């Protein structure tokens, strides 16, 4: 019995709870607990990754109840991959934050750990309602993180963010319970079986449940036309928070992938295929509008926020293409975009701090004191996000383009991807040339603290991961292919969770029949 799968959830949760008890403790202690917990679960994640890679999904039955009755944690390759990404990002962001940001927010460390716990839980759980719970955890923690500092703009952005997502959570509940009402189960693997054998008269209801569910995930993923909460929330959040949020939209993407590959896969008569007609147009629209938003942005952080949206569009384009190749491409791009957007938020923060009152506004500001390293950092981030080779952005784009090659809509997809690439390039070069090249003499000297070594290390770590995606492109894409293969053959997941002999897990309700 290995308890590995519980570690990424339990350890941050307990550490965060401990931090609550010790909320008056000195910041050093909080940092120690925060970093300790992050490192601990990071190690566990590595172990999970290593184990999940080899084949069958790992399953952890909480409370020792058999599936599909109890809640299960499942780590297949996709989950392991997302966990690893989360852990890497979390560690880097935390390192960045402990250079001083964490002391400004009142409750940074517990919120951070709860946020990470929510993310890990969402990636691990094999139960639809439990997924809701983890969504709520990561959301409420993110509200808290998003408003840290309590500036008006931040509050307003958080209010909009929270209002839309709380409304969406209600719909999440409706969708989950609707699926329960018709299929009688909550376990995702079991749900997959139940949905496959749904009666004709229930098809509409199940599809409605599935579509509502996907809609909810689309809100979290920030897909058109449900992304309006994102730009303000991300662009006004503290830099390390925004950087951590780079993975938040990916939770939505993950959930879309999970649900569409496991539960609503279409099957023989394709009646349960939910995404075919609309996912691609939606993805491309998201990509386009995200890019346009980045192009028209007035602030660096806003630009990055819109690039987050665009990246989701790009990933979903890969997902919409379908098949293991499309998924693999989407996954590679997902990893790339998460890392680079985090980098971009952090670099943006360093630039902002160097520009005094001008902040990260895209108009001329005072000359930067650390122009060379900052310029290099922005150059890296900008060219990576714009897909200039030899960055992970280029490879990601390349793989997505290749994966969409033999589809019907290839002309449309390529046109959108290439045109948005040019626009992204224009946006980044514009932003960079304004922020780094265009100086005016400052009215007053800037007092913000200069970049610290730890911040550089955090940045370098993330950039290193991004470059790792390039240097080790072959093993990474091979892993992504394996993920895609595993996702497109859902039987292994179902068997790992439910066992091979699929029993009669559901029973009709009958009055007076139950004898305890």
């Amino acid at each position, binding site marked *: 019995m290995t308890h590995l799968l519980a570690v990424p959830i339990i350890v941050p949760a307990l550490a965060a709870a401990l931090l609550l008890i010790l909320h008056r403790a000195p910041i050093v202690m909080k940092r120690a607990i925060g970093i300790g917990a992050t490192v601990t679960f990071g190690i566990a994640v590595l172990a999970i990754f290593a184990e999940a890679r080899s084949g069958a999904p790992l399953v952890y039955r909480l409370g020792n109840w058999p599936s*599909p009755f109890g809640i299960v944690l499942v780590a297949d390759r996709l989950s392991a991959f997302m966990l690893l990404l989360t852990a890497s990002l979390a560690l880097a962001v935390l390192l960045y934050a402990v250079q001083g940001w964490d002391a400004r927010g009142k409750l940074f460390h517990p919120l951070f750990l709860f946020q990470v716990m929510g993310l890990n839980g969402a990636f691990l759980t094999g139960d639809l309602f439990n997924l809701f719970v983890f969504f709520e955890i990561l959301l409420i923690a993110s509200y*808290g993180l998003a408003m840290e500092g309590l500036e008006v703009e931040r509050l307003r952005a958080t209010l909009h963010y929270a209002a839309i997502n709380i409304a969406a959570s209600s719909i999440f509940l409706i969708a989950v319970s609707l699926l329960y009402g018709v299929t*009688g189960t909550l376990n995702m693997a079991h749900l997959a079986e139940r949905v496959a054998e749904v009666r004709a008269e229930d098809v509409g209801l199940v599809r409605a449940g599935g579509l509502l569910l996907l809609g909810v995930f689309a809100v979290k993923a920030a897909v058109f036309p449900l992304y*309006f909460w994102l730009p*303000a929330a991300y662009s006004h959040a503290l830099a390390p928070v925004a950087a951590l949020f780079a993975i938040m939209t990916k939770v939505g993407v993950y959930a879309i992938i999970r649900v569409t590959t496991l539960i609503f896969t279409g099957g023989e008569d394709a009646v349960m295929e939910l995404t075919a007609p609309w996912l691609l147009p939606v993805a491309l629209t998201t990509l386009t509008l995200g890019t346009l938003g980045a192009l028209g942005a007035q602030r660096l952080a806003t630009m990055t926020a819109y690039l987050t949206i665009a990246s989701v569009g790009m990933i979903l384009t890969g997902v919409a293409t379908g098949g293991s190749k499309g998924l693999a491409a989407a996954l590679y791009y997902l990893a790339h975009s998460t890392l680079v957007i985090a980098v971009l938020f952090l670099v943006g923060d360093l630039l902002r701090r160097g520009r005094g009152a001008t902040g990260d506004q895209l108009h001329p500001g005072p000359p930067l004191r650390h122009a060379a390293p900052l310029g290099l950092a922005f150059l890296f981030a900008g060219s990576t996000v714009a897909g*200039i*080779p030899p960055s992970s952005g280029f490879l990601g784009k390349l793989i997505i*383009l290749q994966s969409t090659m033999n589809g019907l809509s290839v002309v449309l997809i390529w046109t959108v991807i290439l045109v948005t690439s040019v626009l992204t390039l224009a946006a980044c070069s514009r932003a960079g040339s304004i922020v780094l090249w*265009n100086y005016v003499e400052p009215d007053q000297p800037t007092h913000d603290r200069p970049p610290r070594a730890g911040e550089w290390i955090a940045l370098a770590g993330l950039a290193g991961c991004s470059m790792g995606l390039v240097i080790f492109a072959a093993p990474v894409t091979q892993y992504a292919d394996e993920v895609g293969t595993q996702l497109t053959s859902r039987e292994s997941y179902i068997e790992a969770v439910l066992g091979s002999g699929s029993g009669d897990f559901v029973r009709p309700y009958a009055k007076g029949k139950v004898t305890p």
Partner: protein
Amino acid sequence: MTLPIIILLPLLAGTAATLLLQRRGFSAAAWAAALPTAASLALLTYQTPTILAGERFLQSWQWLPDHGLNFSFRLDGLGLMFGLLILGIGLLVILYARYYLSAQEPIGRFYALLMLFMSAMLGIVFSENALLLLMFWELTSLSSFLLIGFWTHSPLARQGARMAFAVTGGGGLALLAGMLIIGNIAGSFELSAWFTARETIRNHPQFNVALGLILLGAFTKSAQFPFHFWLPAAMAAPTPVSAYLHSATMVKAGVFLLARLYPLLGGNPMFEYVTTTVGLTTMVFGAYVAMFRHDLKGLLAYSTISHLGLIMFLLGLDTPMSSLAAVFHIGNHATFKASLFMAAGIIDHECGTRDMRRLGGLWRQMPQTALLAIVAASAMAGVPLFNGFLSKEMFFAEALDLHDLLLLEDIAPVAVMLGSMFSVAYSVRFIHDVFFDEPHNLPHQPHKPPRYMKVPAEVLAVVCIAVGVLPGYTVAPLVDVAARAVVGDALPAYRIALWHGFSLPLAMSAVALVGGAVIYWLLRHRYDLHLHVPAHYTGRLLFQHAYDGSIVLAARLTNQLHNGSLQRSLALVIATFLGLGAWPFVEHGLDIGKVTSSTLTPPGIVVGGAAMAGALGAVWFHHTRVVAIVLAGVVGLAASIAFAYFSAPDLALTQLAIEVVSTLLLLIALALLPHSTPRESTRRRKMRDTALAAAAGAGVAVLSWAVLTRDQESIAWFFLENSLPRGGGHNVVNVLLVDFRGFDTFGEIIVLGIAAMCTWMLMDGLRGERQAERPSPAADRMIFAVAARILLPFALLVALHMFLRGHDLPGGGFVAGLIAALALIMQYMGEGLRRMLAHIRIDFWLWIGGGVVIAGVTGLASVVAGFPFLTSGTRHPVVPLLGEIPLVSAMGFDLGVFMTVLGTTLLILTSIGQVHRKTSKTEENQQWNS
């Protein structure tokens, strides 16, 4: 490893060294850049004999083989020629730049970028893998962006850099698409494989699309009309950059690419037609415009455009000799144009201006510079004895020998003549206006340039003459292998020589020279060239408009889509979900089931009616907020009655307690907010919202009705059967909460805890503004506080009761926590927080955090015993006198729940409750009396 080393040496060694050495002075930096370049050059030269002997290298390492991307390199004649040009001219530019840049400038950065560019360029010419080539291609765009924008303070530099980046980078994306198509057809991205599969690829229906995309990439990079405009704008770069990038290297990447792919593309009618047409147009256009540029570098830029058009034209033609001419002219143009740029740089450097209207008579001050400029300009004009003459003569010969090119056959000779005459004219102008004319208020008296600044230009000038006079002994072998790399072994017998006897091309050269001189004389003395106001930079302006416009448009579109209105975003979200929910039923129809289990009862009707009336009333009265709370409270009460009636007492309990807490919460908050809502919604807005609301309501009602009337199959039996024997409790719902689905509950108390933390954080800082607590009115103190005090012990008792029985009967940690919290909240309302806390010390944080820890640790206890997290254990120890005591480990978990719920409820309510209203007294009165 030779090729990768040649490519990477400048980048790695150069970048590192230049950055490290920049503080040690210019010379150190220059040496640091020059030595690796020289080393690369030496390595390449070492390979030269082999290549000249007709061999070629292929080296390959795998990178991302599944996606066709490999480190594959090729060294053949074409690559060799380009490599020598890149490294050789690069070396000269490094030397030149050392004297060109002024002392304050960051020379380390300059050389580092130059080295980056050099490596990228070498990468292009040595790539065997198309995708690898493309990566280097885009890297040249990036590094040229950085180099053009090197003088960051200049708006023109920034603009020019962005423009070059957008055009060439964008072209690169088109190229990417084209290559992907071909790679997909060929099943490989190795160029050799493409050449082998030539027929398959060319017969594929998608080939023409790919070709178009590739040409787009090449044309943008090589500044072909109508994509030429970025090149003049790029003249804002430091002159060494222009000399290197915009004459010898980067702009040649486009023609290089077509030469490289010639085995695949050559002879394709579309390729030929498009390329020759574009090339010819560009050539004439560029030459024509060049005559009218007053800026030296502007003239040279348009001249470059023109020559690139010439090369493009030659490459496009489907004859082996034309390709040879193209390759030859690439080299010639690189030498004389680099030299001219350097001369222009020297002039600019020494006179402070590049405006030919102001310059003049420099022959006297700088005769050596004048001489080498004259040599280079003569080569540019195609004067015999200089290298340009040789390739230009071949060009004339090819232009006269067109066939199968429709209209072009008739136009080409005329166009070629015109272009050549213009070319002569601007060359003459360059020399005459700068060195012989009279100066007009020069910024300062020109002085002699540093000795070594002239050396690079001189070297190039010597090359121009050497090649021009003795082609056979200098470049002929190189050009030959390069051309063979392009057209294969189809080259006929030929001879590159100064003298071919009297021929039509020779006559054309002569006519061009004389005609060009006449044109210049006419322009200068009849047209008054110096008063000519340069036409608008049409392409550039168009681009700039498009660029700025797209930014403005993007911003406007974004702002219109997302105008910051939450109401609108929410409406969109709701509308989207309505669509999502309705869509399946549009497709599949809706089946309502036939089961109805329960008959109508009077309380049922009334409670249902109360819920509806409460909800509708809350909407109707929502402007008076307190009334809306009352009415919304009815909905909650009705819900709890419904829960109770339909056999869910646990829900009823929780809903009741939560309802009270929520009401308190809303009221406490309302006390800090305006007491009423203004009537501000427009009629249209109300209609829209009503429609959305009605649709949402109808949708949810239909869904619930459809499910309610269906038979049910579910996993519920398992919980009912196992609750008692394996969960140790009669109350299935509670066993679900703390055992079967305890993990949900664990998450849920965390949500609560976080919510409380966030609430506390939000109210932080508002507490301090509070005035000293005034004693509450006597009546409140007497009546409410006393009742609260009396109820407290009983409420705690009831909470304990609920807690202890929860596993078997309705109750549990939640309800218990809520009741205990309410009991304490009553004290808080009666006494105030300070007095309450003075009496009972409760650290809310301890309760929240401790609750989560206890719940978690209880769950972990099973881990110690070797079971998964949250596995529960049941013990029924028999204690003397007391009898059997049912102990369920889940109770520890429930204790955690209890503590967290208690702590969070108190923290949330007291946090908000402690805030002092921030309104003036008068405002409060006004609001209050209304």
